[in-house]
């Protein structure tokens, strides 16, 4: 393998007394889809801004495309495509103009920009809106324009900060499908997300970030294998008087763990999670104990469970 496209060692970012990124090591290889998964405030966006060569690191080593962002910022940015968390399109321009003016910053000949703009609008399925102003477009369409704009310089790496946050389910799926195509073309994707399904869909490899640090690293399957059980049995109980909620039933499940029918019990405000290799068997034992949950669900483990295990908190509150 050649040099990684992004290499960070002990990367730190502080704002005054607040440490947003607290010493992270990251290697991102050419062609891979790499994700930063974590809740809001974990330091994902700050990391992305450093990788985007727009925010100087406070400490540590950072190399992007083999270059030092403190010295070669413009040269690095010339080869990146950036999709920020909040769309920052020029609302006074049309869809097409947004791409045309953006291409100029990369020193591309006008004819090349025109050609690519047409191709990219086709790629994000917005050719019929090319002449429309950006302002009245839907959130999903604006996002697609932003992605098209990020590709106008044919970047080596595309940075996507929370690419589908705030979009409705259908718009998310359209976007995922487009991003998947990019990935298949060999474009390196680096994305942040607090959606586990997004991370599972798009990332070959990811790091789980919490409070500025990396809590774990691996492919989605590896992370689940390392930090969770095969299945999860979710139990909801009626809220008791006085509001002890699900916690009141946790003790009653202790015998299951003692017998090995479940590995671990997590108590959430509204439900209990029983981590086990066989969810249906565990559920039978719960019922055999005489417990009567209001509802139950047996499912496969997800990255949400990995996160819960690593940090004791849920991703999306």
């Amino acid at each position, binding site marked *: 393998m050649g040099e990684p496209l992004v290499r960070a060692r002990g990367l730190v970012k502080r704002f005054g007394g607040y440490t947003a990124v607290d010493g992270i090591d990251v290697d991102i290889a050419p062609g891979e889809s790499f994700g930063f998964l974590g809740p809001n405030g974990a330091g994902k966006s700050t990391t992305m801004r450093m990788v985007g060569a727009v925010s100087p690191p406070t400490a540590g080593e950072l190399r992007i495309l083999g270059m030092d962002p403190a010295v070669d910022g413009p040269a690095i*940015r010339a080869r990146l495509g950036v999709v920020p968390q909040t769309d920052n399109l020029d609302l006074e*321009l049309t869809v097409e103009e947004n791409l045309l003016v*953006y291409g100029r*910053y990369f*020193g591309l000949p006008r004819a090349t920009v025109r050609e690519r703009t047409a191709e990219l609008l086709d790629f994000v399925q917005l050719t019929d809106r090319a002449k429309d102003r950006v302002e009245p477009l839907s959130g999903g369409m604006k996002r697609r324009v932003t992605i098209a704009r990020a590709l106008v310089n044919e970047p080596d790496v595309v940075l996507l900060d929370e690419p589908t946050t705030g979009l409705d389910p259908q718009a998310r799926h359209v976007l995922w499908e487009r991003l998947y195509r990019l990935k298949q073309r060999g474009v390196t994707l680096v994305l942040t997300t607090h959606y586990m399904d997004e991370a599972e869909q798009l990332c070959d490899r990811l790091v789980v970030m919490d409070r500025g640090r990396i809590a774990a690293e691996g492919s989605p399957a590896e992370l689940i294998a390392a930090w969770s059980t095969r299945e999860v049995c979710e139990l909801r109980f009626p809220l008791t008087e006085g509001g002890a909620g699900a916690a009141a039933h946790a003790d009653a499940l202790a015998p299951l763990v003692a017998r090995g029918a479940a590995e671990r019990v997590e108590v959430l405000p509204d439900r209990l999670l029983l981590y086990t290799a066989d969810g249906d068997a565990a559920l039978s034992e719960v019922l055999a104990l005489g417990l009567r949950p209001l509802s139950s669900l047996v499912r496969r483990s997800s990255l949400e469970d990995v996160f819960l295990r690593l940090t004791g908190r849920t991703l999306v509150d």
Partner: protein
Amino acid sequence: MVPSPAARSFLAQRLTAHRHFWRSSALGSVLEPVLFLAAMGLTLGSLVDRGPGVPGGVGYLAFLAPGLLVAAAMQTATGESSYPVLGALKWDRLYEAVLATPARPGDLLTGHLLYVAFRVTTSAAAFLVVLVLFGAAAGPLVVLTLPVALLTGLAFAAPVTAMAARLEEDAAFAALQRFLIVPMFLFSGTFFPVAQLPLALEWFAYATPLWHGVALARDLALGTAEAGSALRHVGYLALWTAAGTWLAARALQRRLVR
């Protein structure tokens, strides 16, 4: 000094947007001075001309016209450097998008000032045409007011940009307009010689960049300019432009590169 390719790209971006709304922005930048020209120059002017008149033995309209042209440049430059700059930083995040390209904050500032220069100069030129149609131009020398309008515009655009780059809320722009721009417009020699003012206000007028722009434009238009005072006016306006640009560059760098 040639602007960087990135600065020119930003200018191109702003001009592309301008193509969509040039009618309304031109209307704002030209209509207002024309209304003042009509209201003050024609009606009030006829009273003034029947009395002792303005110094220099010219009609009031010829006295007023260069002043209005420069004052309009101040208004246009201030307008383009206040809300649009804060908006580009905070609301639309236009600057963030540009800085994701090879461009640097300094390129944004240069491109922005080039755009303001374009807006001020084209508006002033349009107003100049109106002046000629009104018969308010003292003579062909009135065309020399254009570079003065440009320089005065920059002397306002640069410090106002510096101010906008430090703001979180837009309320300060209303205060700027109310407590600085409007008083300058009224008391910095646009409508009457500042010698008419009480001494303290007269010195306030001398300290404003607008007075220097108005005085220089008027001297040039009426053919009464002297090298010494002209150089002082140009120097003072250049000083505001340079200091404002330096402050704006620093403020943008701090705000955008964190």
